[in-house]
């Protein structure tokens, strides 16, 4: 695992500040610190290491979004929070796969965290729709939209990359793409 000297478990405040500042090293330490705990939970409750990865990353994303939107109040230890979210997510996954035997082996204390995973679930659905709409959109629209809205590149750069004769043409193209994307996005159920 990490060989850095400060690779120990980050304090809860460090994590929150690190997420707000987009710190890579804090995210890394956070990820490494609590993954074994979640792996233990999942593999001893009918899951695989891949399941553990999915569940853990989903939980980190839940935490990340909560911190980013500013409504994260640490009412318990971060460790307990992550464990609880993972536990909740895994129970849901087991129930969906009909593998839940009504009994889960616990390794940590936990709290109930229903609503937060629900919120995350809705957002995931939106993101999935967005992802498939972008796929359907096809090139060059997909890249134009991604470059402009996600990678924050200017129209001028995009114009050069795609070889448009002038920025206006590129802009017109972009709006057309955006309209189609909206259409594709809202067509999905």
């Amino acid at each position, binding site marked *: 695992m990490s060989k850095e000297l400060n690779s120990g478990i980050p304090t809860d405040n460090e994590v929150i500040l690190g997420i707000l500042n987009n710190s890579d090293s804090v995210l890394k330490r956070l990820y490494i610190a609590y993954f074994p705990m979640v792996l233990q939970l999942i593999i001893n409750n009918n899951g695989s290491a891949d399941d553990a990865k999915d569940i853990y990353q989903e939980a980190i994303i839940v935490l990340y979004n909560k911190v980013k939107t500013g409504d994260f109040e640490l009412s318990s230890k971060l460790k307990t929070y992550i464990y609880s979210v993972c536990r909740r997510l895994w129970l849901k996954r087991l129930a969906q796969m009909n593998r839940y035997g009504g009994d889960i082996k616990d390794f940590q204390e936990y709290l109930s965290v229903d609503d937060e995973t629900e919120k995350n679930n809705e957002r995931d659905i939106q993101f999935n729709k967005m992802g498939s709409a972008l796929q359907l959109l096809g090139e060059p629209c997909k890249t134009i939209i991604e470059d402009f809205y996600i990678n924050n590149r200017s129209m001028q750069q995009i114009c050069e990359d795609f070889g448009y004769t002038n920025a206006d043409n590129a802009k017109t193209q972009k*709006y057309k793409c955006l309209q189609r994307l909206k259409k594709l996005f809202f067509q999905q159920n």
Partner: protein
Amino acid sequence: MSDNQLLEQIERYLNGEMSNDERARFEVLRSENADVNKKVAEHKHFVNLIKQYGERLELEKRLNALHSEIDVHSLEEELMIHPSWIVSIWRNHHSKISVAASIAIFAVLCTLFFTGYLNNHEMNYVKLKGEVEQIKLTTSKLNSQVNGLKRSPGRNSNPANFRGTGFAISSNGYIVTDYHVIKDADSVYIQGVDGKSYRTKVIYSEPGADIAVLQIIDPSFKSFGPIPYAFKKADTDIGENVFTIGYPRDAMVLGPGFLTASTGFRGDTTQYQVSTPVDFGNSGGPLLDSKGNVIGIINAKETHVEGAAFAVKSSYLLKTIQDIPDSLKGSLNLNSKNVLANLSRVQQIKKMQNYVFMVKVYNQ
């Protein structure tokens, strides 16, 4: 204004790229035109969604990169709770184990079945009451109708349903036999070696010891005369030379042998085990020692063991006789004088054959 132009304006408005003038005009348009206002909100939401989607992809990429640095496999080994070896064997092989176990159980049951082990053990122990076959019964019935007129008083040529052996215990007509011989009987007759038959009634029975006492009630009966044998009170030792006589068939049959155990079937202390040939019909026959003392009453044999017969000890016979209520006992005086002691086996049997009877039981 085309859609594209409107979109461009909305975008510039949201990005704060408009001049103050332009901005004021757009805000007027927005407040006047609900449609435009709605589009602004919609666009803002949608663009946000695209941005968040991008951020999510980015975050996932970072997390995946972090994940690839972790040695998941060794962690997994370390964190997996390993069940004890017996549990893991069961989890990995339970279907095979189940099949093997079923086959094993089936094989054992088959073996037991074919070796006869599953037959009831009690079957090994059969009481020696002779049951006369149905076919003989019907044939003889026919005979008895033909011979009916010839029947002399005191003789009964009707074939019995069951047959056993009995012997006299006093000269005035008391006979002892096994309880199981006369059980459920409607009428009981005895028939001597000379062919004479007498009607009797059961005056007392002791099912626990398998002993029954009969009394001859036939008017033609007078007396047996003095009984040649006595009854032994004490237990007899293993190895004693013994013999029995009885009616496994129509003629009297001698069964010589030895006393082989001081307990009966499954350690029954009321009985002896005797090595002597006995058959159905020997039940109730006397077991005598070499001096001519009655030491027991033959009552059963073990079916799978050659020559393993059982006899109720004479001490239980004496006790049963004592237990008979005085009102029934009448003049039952047990013989205590043994005149057989110094005679040869041939002489002994000659003397006592008149005191051993075939017991015929009717219960239709």
